[in-house]
């Protein structure tokens, strides 16, 4: 793949590219999104 026969190398390229695609998708879809994730102390204070 990509002119590289060793899977140990082309896999690194493939996964880096996949990571880039994920970051683009994540960044665009959550560009204006606030999440409601709470930290341990928030949970404790609410309890």
């Amino acid at each position: 793949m990509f002119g590289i026969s060793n899977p140990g190398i082309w896999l690194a390229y493939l996964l880096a590219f996949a990571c880039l695609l994920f970051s683009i998708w994540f960044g665009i879809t959550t560009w204006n999104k606030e999440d409601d994730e709470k930290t341990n102390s928030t949970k404790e204070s609410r309890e």
Partner: protein
Amino acid sequence: MSTLTLGIIVIIYMFVIAWLGYLGYKQTKNASDYLLGGRKVNPIIMALSYGATFISASAIVGFGGVAATFGMGIQWLCLLNMFMGVVVAFIFFGRRTRKLGEEHNARTFPQLLGLHYKSRSIQIFIASIIFIGMPLYAAVVMKGGAVFIEQMFHIDLHLALLIFTLIVAAYVITGGIKGVLYTDALQAVIMFVCMLFLLFWFYHIMDMGFIEANQRLTDIAPMVPERFKSLGHQGWTAMPIAGSPQWYTLVTSLILGVGIGCLAQPQLVVRFMMVESTKQLNRGVLIGCVFLIVTVGAIYHVGALSNLFFLKTEGVVASEAVKDMDKIIPLFINKAMPEWFGAVFMLCILSASMSTLSAQFHTMGAAFGADAFPKLGRGKNPSSTLGVRIGVLCSILVSYVICYALSASIIARGTALFMGICAATFLPAYFCSLYWKGATRQGAVASLWVGGLASLFAMLFLHKAEAAPVGFCKALFGQDVLIDVYPWYAIDPILFALPLSAITIVLVSLVTQRKTV
């Protein structure tokens, strides 16, 4: 290119940096502005600053040379930089860190954990590790920048070191984190454009495409020098032989050590607390990954492919054209790139050094002035920044002295050493502060001590790369390392210390939880 032209380019660059530092100074009104930019930093500037701080000159010149010598296996580091350094760091650590910091009104990393575990001693302990350990890492970056200036302008190394340090000191002390962030953003853009050009120009001069170049590099595998074959080198498009010395260095030190180590870097963690909301961090994921794949990915890729260029022009592979790995990329830039690009690339290297160094100085200053001595310089004004500014000045002086005091071989290990200590010492307590409410103060304290001491022990007595140049083990026991059996002396300390630190926080927390219940 003449020294005069180079000088003019650098002077213009320095004026812009000075102006950005002044901008930071004008916008800094109190301690919160100085330490966290008032928690209202633009997400693009934050992400660019994060990336620029992450990537130092050694990542470009040093690891670029590693790619030229040992091949594309180093691309796993690029993947981990993106995945662990941005995706995992921003999504799983950053979002909770920002909220936790806001809840506790924490301004520094030691303060964040100290307030969370309700322990002043934790804050002091972390600040001490930063103030003692980080100057070594900063000294590496300082020396790298000074050597580069020395070579470009043919001036004395001591003078180069002084000039370089004074420039960074000026905008960090006056401009605070805003000065650091603005200059980082500019430096990140310079690095990004340079690496993009480098990638496109390489294919242009070699007149081949992506797959064809990779195939040609695969075909020249038999030309690997004999001295590297014995270390496990199988070619530039192949991983080293599993279990060989080169494999252990690549997998344990570079990929795991730096890849995991980046998660608990105080100067990076603090950036998560600078933004106003979670959506700013979400945007940072996109910007950070694009920045890293272009800067780090491009230099590792072109570094490995530079063998084709050297083969075409010199008739030998890169590591035969120049024996010193650190000089491969500068030589390649000199020979393969247009003349004007040499000056721009010099700005790129200066930018990479300055952005990393400024963040280090600011973090050390904060550890000194805001964590260890919070009342320093605050007499009647609690929001005074004088104490932190004094801290920054002290950290600069300590780093400057270390540059002279330690031998080059120890300084060269500074980056891996500090990253390893950070990961093993801070990561379990930091992770549990975000994800496990069962973690107790006693568990965190024990984990910090065990991680720190285990790292120190492994570096002084087990891992040859650090133990041999330090010489402490040899002085006590007459041999470089305690276990002189392969592969034990080649395994990075992080593989011993991090699991120990993680197990400690779990066990001690479980025991102390029961006692308190």
